[in-house]
């Protein structure tokens, strides 16, 4: 038989290609983060982080925007987490397989792929105008909750379903009720996956710009009430860059946003890792 490339060589070539795509992914990530940090870090100092903005952000600090980011994301997660996890428990443990369940699952997939600007428009029409929440932390947070919810639901559902059936059998055989089994055996075993889902949902909320463009307003003060307008970091960044207010400060804001996301991701990963190791006795 005539082969153009021997199995040994094709193995080498493919391995190189896969290695290359892995390395390329890492390089792109390092390049982007590096580029932002190199351009952004020079403007970051104590006053930039904890100061009030001056001239719409041309100088001064970004403290109200950092607070806005955490506030809006917090509201989004407070709403989206119970809905997403609750829905996941229903789908994975109670629903079985029927048309309604398929519809819910399909619906949440669609919801996850709707462009964020459409969410923004809906949030404006529904929360800001119809429910009269105005341009506020509440309107923005609820809009982001709609976006984060399907992500949390799908991830949590997969993670609950991947808990071995033998755990719940062992629990039921001891006389535990379905809910006791879910609450005390299945959920603790699924927690790492559920947390990952919440973090993915959070990442979707914290970096979102389009969905909050029409819903949170554009305040320059620290928001206190949930009915106050706010301006999360991505929105501030967008304003700085598109209105040509200050490119150095735009990079600075971007750097702060990236660092916040990195810290949250790394810390939760480490916590989840520790929990899993303890649970599995490794």
């Amino acid at each position: 038989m005539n082969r153009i490339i021997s199995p040994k060589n094709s193995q080498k070539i493919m391995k190189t290609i896969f290695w290359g795509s892995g390395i390329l992914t890492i390089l792109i990530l390092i390049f982007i983060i590096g580029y932002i940090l190199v351009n952004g870090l020079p403007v970051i100092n104590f006053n930039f982080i904890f100061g009030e903005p001056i001239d719409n952000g041309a100088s001064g600090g970004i403290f109200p925007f950092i607070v806005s980011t955490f506030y809006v994301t917090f509201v989004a997660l407070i709403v989206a987490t119970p809905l997403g996890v609750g829905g996941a428990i229903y789908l994975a443990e109670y629903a079985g397989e029927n048309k309604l369940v398929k519809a819910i699952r399909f619906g949440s997939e669609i919801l996850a792929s709707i462009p964020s600007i459409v969410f923004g428009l809906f949030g404006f029409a529904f929360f800001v105008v119809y429910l009269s929440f105005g341009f506020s932390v509440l309107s923005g947070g609820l809009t982001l909750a709609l976006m984060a919810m399907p992500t949390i639901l799908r991830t949590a559902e997969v993670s609950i379903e991947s808990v071995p059936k033998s755990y719940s059998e062992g629990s039921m055989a001891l006389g535990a009720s379905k809910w006791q089994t879910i609450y005390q055996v299945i959920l603790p075993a699924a927690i790492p996956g559920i947390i990952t889902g919440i973090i993915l949902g959070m990442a979707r909320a914290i970096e979102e710009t389009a969905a909050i463009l029409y819903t949170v307003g554009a305040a320059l003060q620290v928001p206190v009430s949930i009915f106050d307008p706010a301006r999360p970091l991505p929105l501030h960044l967008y304003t700085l860059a598109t209105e040509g207010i200050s490119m150095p400060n735009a990079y600075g804001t971007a750097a702060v946003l990236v660092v916040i996301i990195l810290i949250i991701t790394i810390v939760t990963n480490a916590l989840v890792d520790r929990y899993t190791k303890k649970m599995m006795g490794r």
Partner: protein
Amino acid sequence: MPYRIEVENLNVYFGESHILKDINIKINTNMVTSLIGPSGCGKSTFIRTLNRMNDTIPTFKKDGTVLLDGKDIYDPNVDVVDLRKKVGMVFQKPNPFPKSIFDNVAYGLRIHGLNDNDVIANKVEESLKAAALWDEVEDKLEMSAMGLSGGQQQRLCIARTIAVEPEVILMDEPCSALDPISTTKIEDLIHKLKHDYTIIIVTHNMQQATRVSKYTAFFLHGEIVESGLTDKLFMEPKDKRTEDYITGRFG
């Protein structure tokens, strides 16, 4: 002595398939009964009928009666939670919860409403001792049960089962995933436990049946072909099919 379990004309179906056919058997109190037979003969389905674990399968249907201490366990007034407390189960593959060793045993106590920590701690120690595991784990009760060996995990599952003080322990091939040394330990344990519990054990290992049980029932194609004293069934089988199976001509 009255029988612990009496099964009369039991038929079990999963959808269209007729899994157990006209099962009649009486299980003696505080003795070990082995269920033997080739794979797929209905042994596991049978013991899962005794603690109503089959209830979770939507297509499960049954007729006939299963009496525990003279009372029908399928009576609509029976609380499944109470039943499963009385009829514990140990599975084929050790299935400890991904919790600490202590919490694995305490789990059953807590779900049944016990919350005095001293009482729980005593019960956990007692159960681990009864399951011959205490000496190996007493200094690492807070470690995850997933870090134990397979044999230790299985004894932990037995400890977890006896902690809630059942009357009957069902064992579904409890040694099939274990090495010979762990198997010996579990068999020793069964000898110890039979004084206080009625044990029904499904096994593929006929030597194991002769070693641990007083009574044996031979299942084939969903029927009990023959049942009686283990010694008798193995030495002088009445049915040709039993003889063929125990002499290794099939199965």
